Every structure is written in structure tokens, then in C-alpha cells.
């Protein structure tokens, strides 16, 4: 979780030292507090990396099991949420590397607290989820890590175990594919969006990394 993608998860309170000690001693009920508090974050990370509900559930469960096994290694220098976010990302990427995706129609998932989430510029969640799901894994994972979670390229290269140059090319291709796909979907959905998407910009936008 970076500052550029600051999240309500970052505001979740860390588990107390007592709860952590109980969980480390093997108290599953103490660990339940952690699961219930962070399940949305862990599942969202797995879903965004894998774009498949069944795989996301398996990967999210694996992330919690890794978290449980690694609890004694957690040091409170970073917030628990940040630590668990890294564990979840790593579990989801390892799962993606290890398992082949099960063919499954991609549907817009249920979003917490928001009835009809808008992503701006005529792009709906179902359009985006479908477009992400249709991207090849090699393009989707680096693009998700870069543009959803705002990770630096160096970190993406380490997580995906690919050279940084390759990662940049994959993000470029991922963004281009998404742009063409979403533009097509937006045009199909609304003629007004077509007019907007064709409107040229005078000055462009500055970088924001």
C-alpha cells in the first residue's frame, strides 16, 4: 500500500499485542479477528492479481495460512496491514505462477459498501473486470501491481522475478490493450463517450509517479 493508493485498509487498527501473542500460541479464535478484519483486503489483492473468484479464494486462504505461519516473524516496524498486504501479494503472485487459471466466465464481483461504483470516464466495474480478465497473465499482473497498487517497477520485477525492462514492456502492453479494449467497450455503451474519447487534449498530463 503506497501513499499514491492510500486505502481505507491502511486505517484499519493493528491487532493488539495480546491477540498476536495468542495467535502465535495457536489460538485460532485470536487469529479469527485478523481474518475477519483483513479478509476484504487479502481477497481483493488476490482477486485483482488472478481475476478469477475460485483462484482468488484459494490464494487468499493461502495468504492467511502464510500469515499464520509467519506471525512470529512479524515486527511492528511496519503496520500489520502493510505486512499482510505484502504477504497477500506474494501469495497471489506465487499462486498465479504455480497454477494454471481455471476457465471461468469473468463477472463483476460484489463491492463492499458501494451499490454502483463508478470508475470515471464512462468505464464501469464490469467493463474493467472483464478487460482485466481477458488480458494475458504476463501483462495483467505487472499492470495491476503498477497501476492499481502503485508499486515501483523495481519491486514488481522482484515480485514477478523478471528483468525490470521486461516488466516495463509488459506494463506498456497491458495499458495499451486495456485502453483499446475499454475505448471499444465505452463506445459500444455510449455514443457520448465516443465523442469524449476522440476529443484531443492540448497540453497532455504530467507524470504522477
Amino acid at each position, binding site marked *: 500500500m503506497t501513499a499514491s493508493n492510500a486505502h481505507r485498509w491502511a486505517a484499519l487498527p493493528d491487532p493488539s499485542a495480546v491477540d498476536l501473542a495468542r495467535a502465535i500460541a495457536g489460538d485460532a479464535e485470536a487469529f479469527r479477528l485478523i481474518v475477519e478484519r483483513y479478509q*476484504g483486503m487479502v481477497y*481483493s489483492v488476490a482477486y485483482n492479481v488472478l481475476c478469477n473468484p475460485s483462484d482468488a479464494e484459494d490464494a*487468499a486462504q493461502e495468504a492467511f495460512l502464510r500469515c*499464520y*505461519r509467519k506471525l512470529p516473524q512479524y515486527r511492528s516496524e511496519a503496520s500489520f496491514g502493510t505486512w499482510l498486504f505484502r504477504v497477500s501479494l506474494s501469495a497471489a503472485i506465487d499462486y498465479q505462477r504455480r497454477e494454471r487459471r481455471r476457465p471461468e466466465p469473468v463477472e463483476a464481483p460484489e463491492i*463492499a459498501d458501494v451499490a454502483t461504483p463508478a470508475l470515471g*470516464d464512462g468505464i464501469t466495474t464490469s467493463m474493467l473486470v472483464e478487460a482485466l480478465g481477458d488480458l494475458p497473465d504476463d501483462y495483467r499482473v505487472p499492470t495491476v501491481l503498477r497501476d492499481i497498487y502503485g508499486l515501483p517497477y523495481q519491486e514488481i520485477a522482484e515480485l514477478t522475478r523478471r528483468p525490470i525492462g521486461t516488466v516495463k514492456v509488459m506494463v506498456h502492453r497491458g495499458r495499451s490493450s*486495456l485502453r483499446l479494449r*475499454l475505448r471499444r467497450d465505452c463506445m459500444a455503451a455510449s455514443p457520448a463517450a465516443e465523442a469524449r474519447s476522440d476529443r484531443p487534449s492540448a497540453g*497532455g498530463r504530467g507524470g504522477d509517479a
Partner: protein
Amino acid sequence: MDCGYVCEHINRYLDAEMGYLEVAELQSHLSFCPECAAELVQTGEVRGALAAWGRLEVVPPPGFAERTIAAVRLEPAPSEPRPFGRVVSEVLDRLDETLGRVPLPGGRTIPVKNVIGAGIAAAAAVIIQLERRARRTRELRPL
């Protein structure tokens, strides 16, 4: 700077990885090229949509927490000594993380630990064969 260059390097601009002069050249190109300007706007919109999507929380399937806790109950307590098999597996995982992967033709990669394992197995096979040959030589030697 032409359209091909802009198309190829648009992400460096969006990722703020361009130098000052290159940015000035690109912005000058955008001011008279509506196609490249539109591409930049659309790519920015996609990034905006992805960032907005990332701020939403996907709801886990019903019963997810229960199933996870049931799996956790099967695990030994984190404070307990771990079974030998898991220690070996963790050491191999750490080795994998440390050593990385060897690229193969076709863009695939394999873990370095697999290459090392194959090397150790091959060395063991050679040693066994040499040992057999030496034994046979000893047995056939006239008394």
C-alpha cells in the same frame, strides 16, 4: 519527435521517467498532434480507472472466514517447532527466492534450485556408476 516515438515512450512520460527536455519535446508534439494527445488522455483515463478500482474492496465469498479458520485449525501453532518436511520446504522456498530463476528459450524460467538439484542427482549417478565399475574391476582382478 514523431508519433511512433510518442507511442513507444508514452508510459515513460506517464511514469515521470522522462527528462525535462524530452518532456518539453513531447508536449510540443502533443500540442499539434490530436491522435497522440487523445492516446495520452485515454491512457490516463485507464490508469485513473485502475486506481479507482484498487480503492474498492471486493467482497469475499460467503463463509470465506470460516473456511480459512478451519484450515488454520489444521496447522500447528506458529510457536511450535515445525515438522521436518515443512522446514525443508521453507528452506527450498527461501533458496528459490534468493537464487532466482534460470531463463529458458521461449521466455520460460525454472528455479535455480531445480538446476542445482538436477546437478546433484547427475553427480550422484556418475559416482554410483564409477563405484560399480571400480567394484567390478576389483572382483575380476585375478587373485
